[in-house]
């Protein structure tokens, strides 16, 4: 018998990045006990559940809440740093995060109309320029810089989320759940230029037909993985820096010259140098020399490039907007949401782009407390007056 709690324990454990043995050690039980809870052959005691709740950050109401059936993951769940850093464990963490995120999203979809999924299906071609142009055309865009990238993706039906796995080598991943595309951007690096590039890289995985059809086992093949990663990178470069308009901007091929273009195109100098080389605007030796200079200057290190502060972030606004709609139409208050949707606070805050206090009924309690005090004070004053 596989009860909701069994699936939730697996979900909570994998999201936290623990193996069964690690969780067992944490809870001071045998690994077999954890396995039995998860396969549903045994129920955890109330004390066990409380310990699980405490250690894994899932509330008791969430642990006994069934995982909605319609939620399933389709298409690739890919990582940019798969080969170097992301193990199967990280993949499971990402899968579980997407699952929870989608649960909130679909709960919201019953209350709020979101933009339709308007992702184009693009055939892979040898020329990344053609693929990027096809996407720009499908979305009615010209060849000018795209600064409001988050707004663009959300308006085309992509749900944006953030993922924090405590590993700054983790970049981003994407998936399709019940027909809805999701992109999760790593929030460890705090590097807007990188996030913008990552978002377009994931857009490629979602829009390119051949990438949509890949299975998880395909992604275990290093050759396939390396091919699709190269395609997605090339697509991202061409999407952000179209040849027709970026090309004529590259007049000064020194690092200072590229720096001057950074705030216009909102792309890192490194990505611009790479793209300029791809477009044959600079020779291979110039490309190598520029990257040598970039390394010497330490720009390849985290947050190393100048003018990073000029790059607009991949802004998310639909979560916040949906919360406003729910509150202004008196559907419910923000602090009532956790009782219907007992998700970890971090996930609620991330989806709704809101402070944790908003989901706590502290405000109401304080008002009641003040009222009681003022009534009591008023009574004493009246008594004294008599």
């Amino acid at each position, binding site marked *: 018998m596989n009860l909701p709690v069994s699936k939730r324990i697996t979900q909570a454990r994998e999201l936290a990045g623990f193996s069964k043995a690690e969780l067992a050690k944490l809870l001071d039980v045998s690994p077999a006990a954890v396995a039995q809870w998860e396969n549903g052959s045994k129920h955890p005691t109330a004390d066990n559940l409380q310990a699980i709740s405490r250690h894994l950050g899932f509330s008791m109401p969430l642990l006994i809440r069934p995982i909605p059936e319609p939620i399933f993951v389709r298409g690739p769940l890919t990582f940019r740093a798969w080969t170097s850093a992301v193990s199967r464990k990280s993949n499971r963490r990402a899968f579980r995060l997407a699952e929870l995120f989608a649960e909130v999203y679909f709960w919201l979809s019953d209350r709020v109309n979101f*933009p339709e999924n308007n992702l184009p299906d693009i055939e892979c071609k040898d020329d990344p320029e053609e693929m990027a142009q096809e996407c720009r055309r499908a979305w009615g865009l010209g060849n000018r810089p795209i600064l409001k990238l988050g707004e663009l993706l959300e308006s085309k039906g992509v749900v944006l989320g953030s993922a924090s796995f405590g590993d700054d080598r983790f970049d981003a991943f994407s998936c399709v759940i019940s027909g809805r595309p999701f992109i999760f951007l790593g929030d460890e690096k705090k590097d807007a230029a990188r996030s913008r590039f990552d978002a377009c890289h994931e857009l490629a995985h979602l829009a390119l037909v051949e990438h949509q059809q890949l299975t998880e086992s395909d992604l275990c093949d290093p050759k396939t993985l390396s091919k699709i990663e190269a395609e997605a990178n090339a697509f991202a470069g061409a999407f952000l820096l179209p040849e027709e308009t970026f090309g004529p901007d590259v007049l000064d091929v020194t690092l*200072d010259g590229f720096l001057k273009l950074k705030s*216009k195109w909102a792309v890192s100098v490194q990505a611009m140098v790479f793209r300029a080389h791809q477009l044959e605007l600079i020779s291979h030796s110039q490309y190598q020399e520029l990257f040598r200079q970039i390394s010497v200057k330490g720009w390849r290190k985290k947050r190393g490039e100048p003018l990073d502060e000029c790059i607009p972030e991949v802004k998310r606004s639909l979560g916040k907007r949906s919360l406003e709609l*729910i509150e202004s139409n008196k559907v419910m208050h923000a602090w009532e949401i956790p009782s219907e949707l007992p998700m970890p606070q971090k996930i609620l805050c991330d989806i709704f782009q809101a402070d944790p206090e908003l989901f706590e009924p502290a405000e109401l309690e304080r008002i009641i407390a003040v009222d009681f005090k003022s009534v009591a004070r008023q009574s004493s004053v009246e008594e004294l007056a008599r």
Partner: protein
Amino acid sequence: MSLDPITAIEHDWPIHKQIAVQSLFQSAYASVTELCDPKRSPVFTTPNQRLHSGYTRWIAVNYWLERGCNSGLLEGISPVWKPVFENQDKSCSILELHGKFTSTVACHISEIEASPRESRTRRDYRAGNQKNFGFLESAVDVESPLLNLILVHGDKNAEFAFLRGYYDPDNAGVFTDLSGNIMDLPTIMPAVDEEPIDDPDADIKDHLRDEEEDEEGQNE
């Protein structure tokens, strides 16, 4: 033979180079803010922090101006480092920006009308400028092959920058402005012409719509 300051400026410091100087000053002052931020280290929280800022600004301005020359932004201007004290290679150095007709040194001043700090070199340069600024009769017998300019800048956030010619060896405060306020020139960055993208739209489901609020909205 004297140099005509206006012709010299038009040749060595045309407007596009002044705009480049503007962006170099902005970069230099931004470096100072970052490097001297007391949050970086408690060492910079004493009242002497401003000395640290002053020295850093001097170094940063010269660094960015030299970088501007080397990157081609200030084409035709060569960076020349000169030791402050002659024959002392290990003393600190001053950056002179040599054009065809002018030699320019950057100097921070706290107010627009303030005079650069006095030094023997500056006095000599002012004397050398006398003939170039038309004081042929009273000019001392010093002739400079280049017009010596000072690129004054200040206050705390690069609010102003002027190319100035000082020419009175006895009075460090007498000058002629040879440019407008460089920091007021239009920016070097091209105006960004971006794709217009509307904010994504979301709406409450019809069955959950609060009609009272809708009516209020319509009445408004």
